[in-house]
């Protein structure tokens, strides 16, 4: 009994995966068995966007000390527009277009760090303020621009092998790489150490400045990548396409078993939580529950999971 408990507490990703399976079973039951595998493959595809932004957000949140990145959806929108705007629906602009999206994310990440560092703004406000500026820039750019993905990219974003989306396979591999980076590299360990105890990490020789900068840059670049991918999937950039990912990027991190106060991060849990969230939306759709109810239920689940998990312990 105790060994099971220890095994579970070391593997918090079990819960979101279990929740995902449960939601999937309910969906299949509601749909009386129709489209069981199609539901799964669609969820695996839509989860990718949550996973990509979630992995970036994970590094920021894991670095603790109130760090959070609220600029994610705005970065996605701007990166999507700039990238698709360059591609113009042509394959010729593919690589440069993707690069533009990533650089856009990089710049937003660096701006976030600059605001936090130079102006001593709390990360919440800095990332929100920078994000709003990015959104205004995207809105300006969106007027009269053709923002369509290159056909190769659009094809990649929707293609499947044996019913499994290629994009999902890609980002399972990326997630494994990120997991190794987090658990085995100096950088990953520095992030977790800083998140657990800033003072102890400093005394242990962790380069705090570089570590935190890197976290925000990773989050920005992943958000930029997600913007390119979602634009490719949807057949073009759109102004409101990324809205769910502000709360969503935080939700998959928290639901996945990472600590909201930092110092503890879990990559597989992000995939589990992303699958759970997308399958949940699917299930509510199958039950004929409208968008407004979905928002309420998602919000309540996140607050409830947080309330059960609790935050920092009293020192």
């Amino acid at each position: 009994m105790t060994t099971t408990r220890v095994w579970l507490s070391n593997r918090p990703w079990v819960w979101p995966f279990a929740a995902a399976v449960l939601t999937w079973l309910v969906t299949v039951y509601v749909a009386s068995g129709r489209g069981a595998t199609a539901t799964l493959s669609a969820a695996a595809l839509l989860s990718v966007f949550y996973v990509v932004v979630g992995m970036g957000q994970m590094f920021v949140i894991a670095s603790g000390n109130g760090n959070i990145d609220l600029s994610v959806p705005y970065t996605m929108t701007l990166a999507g527009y700039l990238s698709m705007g360059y591609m113009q629906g042509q394959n010729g602009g593919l690589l440069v277009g993707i690069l533009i999206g990533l650089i856009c994310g990089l710049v937003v990440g660096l701006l976030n760090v600059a605001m936090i560092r130079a102006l001593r703004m709390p990360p919440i406000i800095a990332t929100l303020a920078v994000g709003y500026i990015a959104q205004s820039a995207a809105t300006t750019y969106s007027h009269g621009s053709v923002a369509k993905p290159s056909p190769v990219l659009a094809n990649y974003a929707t293609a499947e092998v044996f019913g499994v989306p290629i994009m999902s396979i890609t980002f399972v591999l990326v997630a494994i790489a990120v997991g190794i980076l987090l658990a085995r590299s100096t950088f990953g360990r520095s992030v977790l150490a800083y998140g657990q105890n800033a003072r102890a990490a400093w005394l242990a020789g962790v380069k705090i400045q570089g570590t935190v900068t890197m976290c925000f840059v990773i989050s920005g670049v992943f958000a930029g990548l997600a913007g390119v991918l979602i634009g490719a999937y949807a057949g073009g950039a759109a102004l409101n396409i990324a809205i769910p990912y502000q709360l969503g990027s935080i939700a998959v991190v928290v639901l996945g078993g990472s600590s909201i106060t930092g110092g503890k991060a879990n990559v597989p849990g992000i995939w589990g939580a992303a699958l759970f969230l997308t399958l949940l939306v699917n299930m509510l759709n199958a039950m004929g529950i409208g968008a407004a109810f979905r928002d309420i239920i998602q919000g309540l689940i996140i607050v409830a999971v947080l309330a059960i998990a609790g935050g920092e312990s009293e020192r």
Partner: protein
Amino acid sequence: MSMIDESRESMPTATQSATTLPSKTKARRLSGRPDWHEYLPYIALALILIAVEITVPGARSYSGFALLLSASTAAILAAMAQMFIITAGDIDLSLGAFVGLINVLCATQLEKNPAIAIGAMIVSLLAYVLMGVIIHARRIPSIVVTLGASFVWLGIAILVLPSPGGEAPGWLIGFFNLNPPLIPLPVVIAVAAGAFGHIFMMRTAYGVILRGMGGNAKAIRRAGWSLLRGYIALYAVAAVFGILAGVAVTGLTTAGDANVSLDYTLLTIASVILGGGEFTGGKAAPFGTVIGAITMSLAGSLLVFLQLSPDYQLGVQGLILILVLAARSTGKRKEA
């Protein structure tokens, strides 16, 4: 909550900022040297008023002034709500959605079923307080809980009123169109809101305790005060101002729209900070907040006068916030 504030790779200590900052301000106050940062909100307001005066001649008349300021009434009330939350050391990212929910409830129910409308507002108030209780009883960052709650408020608001519509009761519209002699109504509301905040937070004994919670919660608890009860008080007062803001939005726009108030989230945070509040909590500046809210909404109106697209509204708010904090941090750096 300390940020990544170790700008010179200095030793990060949790108590560092808490111990050095108050003593510095105290020393400044004792030396009697006025700090120009305290005038920052007034300087900003003056700049905006000059800009408005240049772009819109005639803004100085009674009706012009009343019209200009009327848009800021709801913003002032919402900013006061945010001020109480920021004083507690939290941030409410759900305030815009909450105001929208109240707006929608007013526009759909207040005329036909006043009892239901008032009942729903009381339930909203309790739900808002519950949000504060969850944050503090479970020690979760306010950002995430309020961000989650914003989806709940918005979802309920959209359920109540899926598309913009409804109608404000005639008496409510009439109230916001009142033209008291000499002093325009928006000014009366602004002064009343600021005075309430000032008396409650600065002049009552409990206000001192509430501010102390944001500054040093541990000390207040050791002095024998219930922190949870204090947070409940702050969230309840904030909810009341949030509700008043929702009522004001209804009276001013004469209709309901779940999405129209969403911008208030950043606007109110910016107003509080512009007005002299501190993110670390513990410092309340009620009149500064009112001035900040007026400045922020005039900045929004200015965009309209300059015939700039409302798309820039958010970006400009973000930019103002960054500029204000930049102005503050440069001055403080030199003194330190």
